[in-house]
Each structure stands twice: as structure tokens, then as C-alpha cells.
């Protein structure tokens, strides 16, 4: 077990180190805050690798291509490349699926955007009885704390 009493001290020390290090060091690459908008580009590319190398000098853009399975497989890319995602998507975009606190499920809030991958489409009330028993870990990932489980509590208590 990690001694919890040490954590405030370690955290403070880490903060001081971080600030000091950031003040004096230059990193190899800082992504832009925002990607150029469609209006700024002469031709709107369909995927990242139309313009960027799949393994660029600084970023492996290939892992950010929104393939047909990206909706269910983007976890490692988003975890390690939050700044890359943020160039095009604000947190509110992620909240549609991940926050589970927006009341309307993503396929309902964006009902006409049928091209977007969205969990729980259609009659998921019936399907979740089976999916939940096959792999409850995937439910827990988004509904595993007291706030995000409020939508489960109506029936499950």
C-alpha cells in the first residue's frame, strides 16, 4: 500500500518540479491549439492522413484517423493524445458519450447525425440485459460511480 500521508508532500513537490521544469525547458513539439477550420482549407480532407503522415515527425496521425471502428477503439489514442483530439474536439463533444450526465443518450441528443458512432442506439433497454451480463466491464467504464450510475439506479436501485 502506498502511504497516503506522503501524498500531499509528494504532490506539492511534483508541482514545484513541474513548474520549475516547464519554466526552463523547451519540449520537442507543442501541437497547435486548434486545427484550421474547413473554411480555412482549400479542400476539406476526409481523414488526417490525407495531409499528415501516418507516422509524422512529431505525431503518429495514423492512429487518429476516424475509421469505421474508431468510435469503439479510440481509447488509447485519446488517453495519450488528448492535445491532438482537442485540436478539433472540445470537451463538450466527448461529454455527449462519456459524461453520462447529459441525460439524453448520444444517439438521441444527436438523432439526425446517423453517421456518428454512438452507443446504445435504438432499443438498448432490451439489449443491455444481455450485453451487461456478457461484459459488465464495458458498462462500468462509464456508469461506475454514484453520479454516472444514476441512470441505472431507476431500475437497479
Amino acid at each position, binding site marked *: *500500500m*502506498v502511504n497516503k500521508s506522503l*501524498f500531499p508532500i509528494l*504532490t506539492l513537490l511534483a*508541482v514545484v*518540479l*513541474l513548474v520549475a*521544469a*516547464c519554466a526552463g525547458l*523547451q*519540449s*520537442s513539439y*507543442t501541437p497547435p*491549439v*486548434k486545427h484550421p477550420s474547413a473554411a480555412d482549407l482549400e479542400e476539406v480532407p*476526409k481523414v488526417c492522413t490525407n495531409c499528415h503522415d*501516418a*507516422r509524422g515527425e512529431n505525431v*503518429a496521425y*495514423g*492512429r487518429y484517423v476516424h475509421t*469505421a*471502428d474508431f468510435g469503439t477503439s479510440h*481509447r*488509447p489514442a485519446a*488517453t*495519450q493524445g*488528448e492535445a491532438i483530439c482537442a485540436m478539433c474536439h*472540445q*470537451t*463538450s463533444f466527448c*461529454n455527449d458519450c462519456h*459524461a453520462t*450526465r*447529459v*441525460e439524453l443518450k448520444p444517439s438521441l*441528443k444527436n*438523432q*439526425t*447525425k*446517423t*453517421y456518428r458512432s454512438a452507443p446504445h*442506439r*435504438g*432499443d438498448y*433497454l*432490451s*439489449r443491455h*440485459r*444481455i*450485453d451487461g*451480463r*456478457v*461484459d459488465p*466491464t464495458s458498462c462500468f467504464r462509464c456508469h*461506475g*460511480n*454514484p*453520479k454516472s*450510475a444514476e441512470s441505472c439506479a431507476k431500475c437497479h436501485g
Partner: protein
Amino acid sequence: MRIGKRYRESILALILLLGILPGYSFGTEVQIKSDTIFRLFERDTSSEDNATVLPGYEYLQVDAGELEEHGVSFHLYGWGRNDFADSDYYEDQTDGELLYGYMEYSQEGNRFNAKLGRFQTFAGVANDSVDGLYLGGALGNYFDLSLYGGQPVALDSKQGRSGDSIFGGRLAHHLGMHYEVGVSYKSIENDNKTAEEMLGFDLSMYLPADLSLYGFSSYNNETDDWAEHSYELSIPIGSIPIGSVVIKPYYQHFNYKGYFDTGVNAVSPFNWLSQTGEKLTAYGVNALWQLDDAWTLGAKAKFFSYDELDNAETYSILATWQGEGLTQYGGEIGHTSANDTADNDYTLVRLYGYCDAMAGQFWLDFVSADLLLTFYDKDIYGEDSSFFMSLGTGKRFLDDALSVTLSGDYSQDPYYDDDLRGMLTMSYTYDKE
């Protein structure tokens, strides 16, 4: 509303702070995005059968400050709801939520990033909403560090917020485009009692022949058990006669004791799972064949192996066609064979379309359609299938700043007979530099 007085005061203080910071006054750029949604449907409530429910939602996002460049900015997103039919359908449910509201400072050159307020953090084992402080940045060319601390929003409805805390961080080491490895830590206390203490490890390796390996493991420090191992290999196969193929085999292992045991934080329907002694191993493969700029074909297979239960598997195939703009048509058919694990098997068929190429030809700008059919091997409440269909259309105004969308859906399934619902959405974007 659950937006507390203390939090409103904090937000106000942040706005004032932004205003007085020299050189970073509001007005650099302001973006406001508003989604106003009205829905109409019928439900049985505690006081009335087939009660009309007419909720109106407002999802509001405000971003201000240095939005195009590094600097100081402010971000806010939240929603509220009112039932104009005054039914009992939403009793005991929150009628609004502040999802985030924070001041941010970012610096070019060292990736320094600071957030103060309510924010969402993704840092290894963390995917949490926090009221507090986030600091992140590069430690030279080879290391990144991120730290956060404050109160967890997830626990604000559980016995108040006194004694609640969350803190943690992630340290990553990367070497160019060769690899990145990260270690992360998260601790959550609820009423001064440890709710969660997790350690994490994540990995990206860019191998020869364009192979890539991604992985994540987490360890529950409270129960002294591994919680999860998830690893995926990406194998691009470029040299085929038509298009390109990417194959992604993966492996996952979950120990229910470590994964679901979150102490006093545990919630139904998951809290009992940690006591089952179950361990789940899942492995499978996703394959995507990109024929050209328009066509993609795909196949997925996933197998579930349990220590206690019988095995299960899912298979599906998909096809999509992508046209100009957002135009896309597609379909997917899948089968889940759950054997004795879930006491049921089902087959799911989905067909969908979105036509974005109508501008200039019709008064409307786009139409959408979605159809889902599910067939259950064993009846659920006397029904062996579900039918769901949605249709929508919309038009954009004011140089696309305003979009008005009308949609409806119909469902016939084990829970609802002839369930018809309507929806009107008005989305407005304001952007001023």
C-alpha cells in the same frame, strides 16, 4: 439544479480574475454554442397513465479568451431541462448540470497547461470530473507530467462533499515516434474514507513495418489486485490489389475483484460483482478494408472466456459508403451468442443514411434515417424482436450559424408498444473576435 452556491461563486470569481488579468481581458474571442431541444412523447408516471411529457432542454457552451492561440481562456458547458407538460416523469431526477466551467492557461514550447475550476481529466487511470486544479506540461524532450487535485464531482450527490477529495497524475516518457510509456495514479476519498486508489500503466509502441502496439493495465491498490489488462496490435496491410486493410487483434483481461471493488464508491448494479471471484478474458480481432475514398468494409469477432460462467462470442460485419460532406450510408449485422452466460442470444441489424448533398436542390439541407432490428432467441416479456426507426431532416440558416432539425422515432419492443416520439432541435453558434 445541483449547481451549488459555492460553485457559482467560484465561477464568478474566475470570470472576474480573467477580467483583471493584464493583457488577457475577455473580448479576444467569444464563442457561444446553444442547442435548444424540445421533445414530445407519452409515458406512464406515478400519477397518470400515458401522460404527455414535453421536456425542453438547453445545452449551453461558452468559450472565451485566447481560443486560437496559447494563452488564457475560459470554458463552460452545462444544461438544464424543464417539462412544459408538468408531468411527474422526471421526479427525483436532476433538472440540470454544470459539466465543466474552468479557466485555462496554456503555453507554447513546453506544453504547459493549467486548468482551474470544474474540468474533465483524462490521465491514465483517470477519466473523472474534478472541481479543482490541473497542471500539465513537458519535462524536457522526453517526459510529460500531469497532476490534478480537488473534489470529485461524481460524489457530490453522496452524503455531501465534506471529506471528499481526488488527486493523482500521470508521468509519461516518450522517445520521438518510437514509443510512449506512462504511469498514472488516482486516489478518491469519500467522507475521508478511501473509495478508490488505482495505479495505471499505458503503452504505445511504433514498430517496424508500420505495426503499432497499444496497451493499458490498471492495479487496484486498495484490494491489491490487478484490475485490467488491455492490449491491441495494429497491423496495416497495404499491398493488396484494391485499397488497404488494417487488422487489429486485441487481448483483454479483467479481474472482477480489482476492477469492480471501488470501496465506499461502489454502486448498484456493479457492487456485487467484485465478490463473485470472476475473471474475464476477452480476445478478438477487428478488420477494416478501405476499398477507396468512399467504401469501407469491416468485420469484427470477439470471444469472452470466464472462470465461472460459460463462454460467449460476438460477430459482426459492416459496410459504409461516404460521399461529399457528411453524406454517408451504411449497414451492420451482428450476432451475439451468449450461451448460458446471458441466457439469451440476439441478432442485430442496422441500416442508416445521412444525405448532406441536398443544398441547392431542395429547400431542406439534409435528411437522415436509422433502422435497427433486433431478433432475440428467447422472448423478453413475450416479445422476440425489437423494431426501431428514426427519420430526420433539417435546414441551416445565417451562413450555417443556425441549424433547425426536426426528427422523430418509432419503437416497438419488449418494453414499449407503438412508442412514437418527436424532437425539434435548434443549434446556434455565435463566434466573435
